[in-house]
């Protein structure tokens, strides 16, 4: 198992180092803009994945309530760490109530 973990880690690292090995001049202004845009579209996808999916299914559960409350707190400029804690509290609370 340890060797499988090491192989898998090297495989993941290969992506990470790849981005740093491509010379900056090959990327250009357009490439930099795309990299910025990717940060946004990937994070948006991760919010959906983390909030509304289990394995390969779409689900609506307590996590949706976490996201609604988190969005409201972020709009009120509440610091990040409290937003995350509220996300946990809301999901845990909603489940206690049987939602």
């Amino acid at each position, binding site marked *: 198992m340890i060797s499988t973990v090491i192989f898998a880690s090297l*495989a993941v690292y290969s992506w990470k180092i790849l981005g740093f090995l491509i010379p900056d001049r090959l990327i250009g202004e357009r*490439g930099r803009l795309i990299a910025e*845009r990717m940060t946004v579209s990937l994070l948006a996808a991760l919010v959906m994945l983390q909030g509304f999916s289990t394995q390969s299914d779409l689900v609506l559960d307590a996590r949706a309530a976490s996201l609604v409350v988190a969005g409201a707190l972020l709009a009120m400029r509440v610091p990040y760490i409290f937003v995350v804690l509220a996300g946990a509290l809301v999901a845990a609370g909603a489940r206690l109530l049987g939602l």
Partner: protein
Amino acid sequence: MSRQVISTSLSVGLATGLYGVSFGAIGSAAGLGVPAVMLLSLLMFSGASQFAFVGIVAAGGAPITAISSAWLMGVRNSFYGLRLNSIISPRGLWRMLAAHLTIDESNAVSAAQEGLRDQKLGFWLTGGAVFIFWNTATLLGALAGNLFGSVEAWGLDGAAAAAFLGLLWPRLRNNLALAGIGALVALVAIPLTPAGVPVLLAAVVALLPIGGKN
């Protein structure tokens, strides 16, 4: 501005610590053993890939399936690397270390800063803080996971969703259409495609001339 970068980085580190506990517990429950679980957090250091790896092992999948799933989940880090390389331009060993610390969180905090100096600081501080908290939490979860009870009962999955929304938030105002399309593509793809593909499709959205700055 730097004080704000420091507090954001520490907050993000603490938040990932919350679900690092759940990773340790899940890895342990999958029968990986504490050394293998710790090695994943130390060497792979990429949440989505780690959860994918452990999920395959728990389901009794072949090693090659576990390796390729972890690999597929890691593609997006190369896009982050492209962006970060032009900002922090590390050399030699620093470049290898920067690549290791390249994850959703470190890139997102860096991207949310205004000046170049804060963008660099945001990357290194967040990468370092997440590395420390994530690994400490993994150890805690792996050793005592079953004492904590289920991830769901503590709402840690809700915390993770809120954490990603918090990372996206500062970028949302200028990129609302792009974020909306990325989210929509992921939602449509989740039930239709294998794990890892929805996020890749969202990356493709960034390549298309849609959802420009508004």
